[in-house]
């Protein structure tokens, strides 16, 4: 069981089509739904909703903020079958979760692989989405990804706390941004039997190479094609940490060019001395820009 983090709203559970889903919900007003990155079965890192601990409560003063553990990540149940170890299953679960909460059109914030999930929701279910915020998403961007160049084979035992810290320190501009509470949340997930099962499936059983990555590659091709065709028809803002070595600035600029060709309400923001996690590395700057964007694109009369 994860420790209770003072900076997070109280955790809740929701059964989403048979998947026990952990989520955090606070505040009132226009709903912002946060989708973190990574995927199930990664052996040295494990994102959870706690990734947003610097953002939820500060923004809850003005908005309803919702963060949830994605399919097979954090405390949420693993996919029901091997064929569901796909990004599409993650997208479908996120859609079902938002629908189960009965939210009006939401402001989606997606980081890294979560940016891909958020963009797919905006493309597949535009009526569910009011705006889209993408943060350092190499998965959604065209060009060469460099995660593996930077993060492969940590110099510590696989799945250890030290390996996890090493991974996140290499993601970030400054190691000081990698706080103990963050690594606590990651390590507790890494140790859980449920998560270990997904690691076994993705690595030893080879679901990563057989199922997850090929399906993601097909879906990414389709997604970029859809964006190029102008199907992303919601206000978009793209954040980028200037010093991210895993998803370099040029990839963000290229994504911005693709989106902004078809859509007027698109912005691009770069934050200095930030790696892959600008919302954790500089939360005050990130929160100020996100709050203004959401407020500007709230519904008629400022209603959600």
């Amino acid at each position, binding site marked *: 069981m994860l420790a209770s983090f003072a900076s997070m709203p109280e955790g809740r559970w929701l059964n989403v089509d048979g998947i026990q889903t952990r989520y955090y919900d606070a505040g009132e007003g226009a709903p912002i739904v946060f989708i973190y990155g990574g995927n199930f079965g990664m052996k040295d890192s494990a994102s959870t909703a706690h990734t947003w601990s610097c953002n939820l409560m500060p923004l809850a003063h003005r908005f309803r903020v919702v963060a949830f553990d994605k399919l097979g990540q954090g405390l949420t149940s693993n996919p029901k079958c091997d064929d569901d170890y796909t990004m599409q299953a993650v997208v479908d679960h996120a859609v079902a979760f938002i629908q189960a909460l009965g939210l009006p059109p939401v402001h989606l914030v997606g980081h890294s692989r979560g940016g891909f999930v958020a963009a797919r929701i905006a493309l597949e279910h535009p009526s569910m989405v009011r705006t889209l915020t993408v943060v350092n998403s190499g998965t959604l961007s065209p060009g060469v990804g460099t995660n593996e160049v930077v993060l492969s084979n940590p110099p510590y035992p696989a799945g250890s706390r030290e390996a996890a810290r090493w991974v996140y320190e290499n993601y970030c501009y400054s190691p000081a941004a990698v706080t103990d509470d963050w690594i606590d949340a990651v390590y507790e997930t890494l140790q859980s039997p449920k998560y270990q099962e997904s690691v076994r499936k993705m690595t030893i059983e080879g679901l990563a190479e057989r199922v997850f990555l090929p399906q993601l590659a097909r879906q990414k091709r389709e997604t970029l094609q859809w964006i190029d065709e102008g199907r992303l028809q919601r206000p978009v803002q793209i954040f980028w940490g*200037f010093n991210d070595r895993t998803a370099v*600035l040029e990839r963000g*600029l290229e994504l*911005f060019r693709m989106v*902004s060709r078809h*859509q*007027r*309400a*698109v*912005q*691009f*923001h*770069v*934050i*200095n*001395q930030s790696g892959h996690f600008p919302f954790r590395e500089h939360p*005050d*700057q990130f929160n*100020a*820009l996100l*709050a*203004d*964007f959401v407020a*500007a694109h709230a519904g008629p009369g400022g209603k959600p």
Partner: protein
Amino acid sequence: MSAVQHQALPLEGTVTAVWYNRIARDAIVLIHGGQPGLLPYCSGAHIWGFSATRLMESAAVIMLELPGTGTTGFSADGLTLDGWKNHIRTVLQQLGTENVHLVAHDTAALPALLLAHDHPHMIRAVTVVSSVAATPTGDGVEKFVLAYPPTPLWSASSQRWALEQVSYAHHHVDDELVAACVRSSEAPAHARAVAHMADPARRLQWVSSISRAKSRLFQVCRESGIPVPVQVVWGTHDPLGTVDQAVWSYRILAQRQPLAQFHLINRAGALPFREEVEAFCRVLLAFDDVTAHRMRG
């Protein structure tokens, strides 16, 4: 801009026009760009248009005019970027401000950044807006965007042409803006600036001052850095400068200043604060909040 007040400050023999809704010590100070007597449209405080109105809804905003523009007087010494920097400093001192957020467009970004370096106690942040002057010259390609303005120069039709040339879309170039530009061109300071720049030696003095300021800025950024938070705001379709130039401007400024942001305003040219008022003001106010909070905190 009904809430806007106007004041004419007598500064070292040069009357200087300032407009404001409220003079607060930590105000946002808008500084127009341009090249008096050279640029085929007359910039001035009027260039900020609805952005100024929008910003005044939630902040204390001061707009000042630089020597050789509008109703501000002319002084030959003032027509260099060093002169502009001294002018900005003197105006701020006279107004009694401290810790202001300078928002500088085009050429004015260079004196604003150097002023922040030389007098950081006076300035809490700088926003650089569409300033090709603050980007590397490199071995650039000649630009023809404003090469052949229709005559008579600085007439309403000529200035409308120039404003449309530097824009993404023409819609913001309304009669009110053109009339304000024409009023500025009819002021005595403009005629004197034109005569001043007609002298090749004096024109060279102005151009050289830009080169010197640019070199000094790059040295400062390389060695000690701009000591206050800085952001670069750029229109994606700026006919005068590419996004690549904008990113380089940001790279240079971000070298040694931790709090540095970069923002692209979509479907805007060289006057993004006119073409995308809401998007521009949101970015500006979010940065202003962060820097003001840090100053207090």
